[in-house]
């Protein structure tokens, strides 16, 4: 009897050890195979199975750059009763935290939800994150918005001005006007040194030398380079810096500075993310994106992907499907929605995308309706998409330039 018990115990321990070791030793490939990602990704998904599995998985961890993600996790809970913990880390923090954790073999995050060139040029190629495109939206997304990375939203970067003080339209018609003496100390932007998403709009200017040069010459004649580099983008950044810009810590602060009504001589912004145009509704601000030469909006992006070795992969997939929204409004033929967006029928139809639905963001699906007052991204609107490859290769050099010249 005793001997038998010992054998059973021994066998049980060996079995346990094997199972434990096996669990620890799951390779990336095995994980990918199990959760059907990377090379094992399928075109379509069995959502019933995913939902059932997600309900078993427990709390899913999301590293995000947007505070609105909290709202989406609330509505996600209302829909599925599955807990998603959002960690709001800013555009550089979300990736940085994951990099440090992965380096140490810690796989805390399930979903990475942020912008930035490191997402595409470091995290993806190094297999720290994996793109997952829900079949519910895949057909509506242009290839560039789902490969290599999935775009959750397009973030419009623009120059915002106070419409109450400027009832006849923007007080400038050319971006070079901001370098003139009358705007000295009156141009404001979010500190780009601590916000990668903001700096991207600045870096992207350097990539548009010709257009900026043409815009200058059209209004001011020959451009004399004073910054030491023969590039109109650098020259513009240099002259804006020499015009005593006012830096702020958040884009909400910039929106409030520019768009608080009742100001005699309100400032104007430089290129910043315009998602805080929603404050027009909630806080009674009077901001609008300025329509100017040579570019009206620069289009940035926020990506979403599943982190390697995520412990809650099914919840992660369901969550990604949730924040992408559904093509329902497209199928209904809607082109513009009336506010408010975060309640009632709008909230139901927009699903997890509702928190971002507003004039400063756009859903990457073709034909998705716009928010009231949102700018069109079609001609004659002058739109520059952010060139992430250019940014990946040049942003740090441009940052040095920014620092040296007083930024």
């Amino acid at each position, binding site marked *: 009897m005793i001997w038998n018990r010992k054998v059973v115990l021994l066998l049980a321990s060996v079995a346990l050890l094997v199972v434990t070791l096996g669990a620890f030793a799951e390779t990336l490939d095995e994980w990918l195979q199990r959760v059907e990602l990377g090379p094992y990704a399928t075109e379509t998904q069995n959502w019933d199975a995913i939902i059932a599995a997600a309900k078993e998985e427990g709390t899913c961890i999301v590293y995000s750059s947007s505070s609105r993600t909290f709202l989406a996790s609330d509505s996600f809970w209302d829909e599925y009763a599955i807990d998603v913990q959002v960690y709001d880390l800013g555009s550089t923090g979300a990736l940085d935290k994951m990099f440090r954790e992965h380096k140490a073999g810690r796989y805390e995050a399930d979903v990475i939800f942020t912008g930035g060139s490191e997402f595409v040029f470091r995290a993806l190629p190094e297999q720290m994150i994996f793109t997952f495109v829900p079949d519910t939206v895949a057909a509506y997304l242009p290839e560039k918005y789902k490969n290599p990375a999935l775009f959750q939203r397009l973030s419009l970067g623009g120059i915002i001005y106070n419409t109450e003080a400027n009832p006849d339209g923007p007080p400038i018609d050319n971006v070079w006007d901001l370098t003139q003496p009358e705007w000295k100390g009156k141009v404001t932007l979010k500190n780009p040194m601590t916000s990668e998403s903001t700096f991207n709009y600045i870096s992207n200017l350097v990539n548009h030398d010709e257009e900026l040069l043409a815009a200058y010459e059209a209004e001011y004649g020959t451009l004399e380079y004073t910054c030491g580099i023969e590039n109109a983008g650098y020259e513009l950044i240099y002259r804006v810096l020499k015009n005593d810009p006012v830096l702020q810590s958040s884009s909400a602060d910039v929106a409030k500075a520019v768009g608080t009504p009742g100001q005699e001589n309100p400032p104007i912004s430089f290129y910043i993310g315009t998602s805080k145009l929603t404050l027009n509704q909630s806080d009674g601000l009077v901001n609008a994106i300025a329509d100017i030469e040579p570019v009206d909006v620069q289009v940035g992006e926020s990506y979403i992907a599943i982190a390697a070795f995520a412990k809650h992969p099914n919840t992660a997939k369901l969550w990604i499907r949730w924040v992408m929204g559904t093509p329902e409004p497209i199928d209904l033929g809607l082109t513009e929605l009336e506010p408010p967006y975060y309640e009632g029928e709008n909230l139901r139809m927009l699903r997890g995308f509702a928190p971002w639905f507003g004039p400063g963001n756009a859903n990457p699906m073709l034909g998705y309706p716009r928010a009231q007052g949102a700018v069109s991204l079609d001609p004659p609107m002058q739109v520059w998409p952010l060139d992430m490859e250019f940014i990946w290769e040049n942003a740090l050099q441009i940052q040095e330039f920014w620092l040296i010249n007083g*930024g």
Partner: protein
Amino acid sequence: MGEFDGTYSETSGIVTTLTKVRFRLLRWLSRPEKVMGLVLLAVLAVLVVLPLIQIVIGASTFGYNDTRLVPDAVPGAWTLYHWQRVAASRLTQVLLVKPLLNSLSIALGVVLIALPLGSLLAWLVVRTDLPLKRLIANISIIPYVMPSWVMALAWFTVFKNSRIGGSPGFFEAMGVNVPNWLSYGYIPIVLAMTIHYFPYAFILVSGAIASMDSQLEDTARVLGASKKTVLRKITFPLMLPALGSAFVLIFSKGLGTFGTPAILGLPVRYYTVSTRVYALLSNGIEGSAYALVVFLILISSLTIYMNAKVIGVRKKFTTIGGKGTRIQRMKLGRAKIPITIVVCTFLGVCILAPLSMLLLQSLTLNGDFNFRELTLTYWIGAPGSVYAANAGILRDPYVLGGMWNTIRLAVISAVVASVAGLFFGYAVVKARGSFMSKLIENLAFTPYIIPSIAFGGIFLSMFARSWGPIPSLYGTFTLLVLVTVAKRLPYTSRTGISAMMQIDKSLEEAAYLRGASWVKRMWKIIIPLGKSGMMAGFILSLITSMRMLSLIVLLVTPKTRLLTSMTYRYVEQGFTQQANAIAVLIILMTLSGYFLASALGKSKLEHIGG
């Protein structure tokens, strides 16, 4: 050993030496402070020396992002790139020289105002018959227990001018034009930081004044010296070491502060070393950030060294020696009422006014100064009534979880830190004068001069991985406790040391001769007698750990979130009311912790100066 055969052989010499060594080792091991010293050194090696080495390594190797700047860089490879970039490149001026000059002038400005102010107040409270002492002392410490950037926010609320745009500050709203130099940059940073640090000077100096025997002064006066002469010849020289170390302590704190310069400097692009470090870390250029940190540490060390050379920090007063220190309280006479009014006005304007301003603003709908429609929405609003934060802070489970974590962390780390402080004190004081004692004391002080933001980052890299039997601590509460205790070591070891210095060693020797074991001596003599000092360490750690931000900002995970990390996000996103409400909450929690602990432990902060 064999019998002595009349000749000294080589072997027997060695044997004798060996025996001597063994004997010495045994004797050495029988001295508990030495063994404890070894254990503490091992702890310090992990918590202080390793992080320092990591900083230097970080500054001397390529990081991943560096490959974007230097095409042939290999991540992890040794390089002088960052040293050169910081100290000898076209970036030197903007990364090192200007920010360093700014940091130095801020630190100097702060210490030159805060030290006289704090000392004067300390003297008034400890050595005169000023009325309302308790109240004045208690209000004075408030700015020190709040997050330093709260003062910066309050400054904005009051002095913000039209340069920024948006809703005006208090004075502009009243129709007063505020010049830029008063709204942003050097002057506001120095003043806001002075309000934060003068209580620290008050604490440090009042401890020294309280322990100063006034009999010396009395004797001089009896011998016919004038008040002026007494002050110049006796009071000041006696105070000098305390003033000197207070100077250095405040100065090095001022050098590394991040929050206030970040908020008040940004609108006019006024940068300090710490804000540059933060920006570099944010952009993943860690090597340059750590190189800057090394420069900051070197300058702080230099200040401390110079202070030790010029004044000599080691001069100590004999305090508890059974000689009966007597404090003669000077009568303020006719000046009493005017002085009281000046002190109260000062405290009211500098402390109570900004605090009420924060509280009031958290009660307004739009964060402006329209006080006609006050609301409790941001405090107790129902779920869904507050944008993005869902509910008022007291009904938001996320905030409540952070509150619980904050309290837990503060209490646990304060207990650990104060007990550790006592051990440090024991090991240092009992072996006074030995190399080990000096080494422990200096190493324990080192975290003081490492900027919190870098310290937290290093702890993240160090403890995210496992080290042999030590599992990875990242994401655990233990790591937060560890980093907090490590960063508080300079304070708790100081209180521990000064507590131990006050215990006459003859007490323990007597017990030793009576055959009491070390544990018994510790339990029956050292701990009971050192309790008050330990309590002071406990309180200091408790009240300062609730407000810390840059130390833990990289280490918190959703499960271990803290109130401060949440407020900072609110500040960054421009959710003024929630940020202010949480700041008020932190201050209230800290103060209740302080009063509760002082009531329980019958200990006051004045003991901390030592």
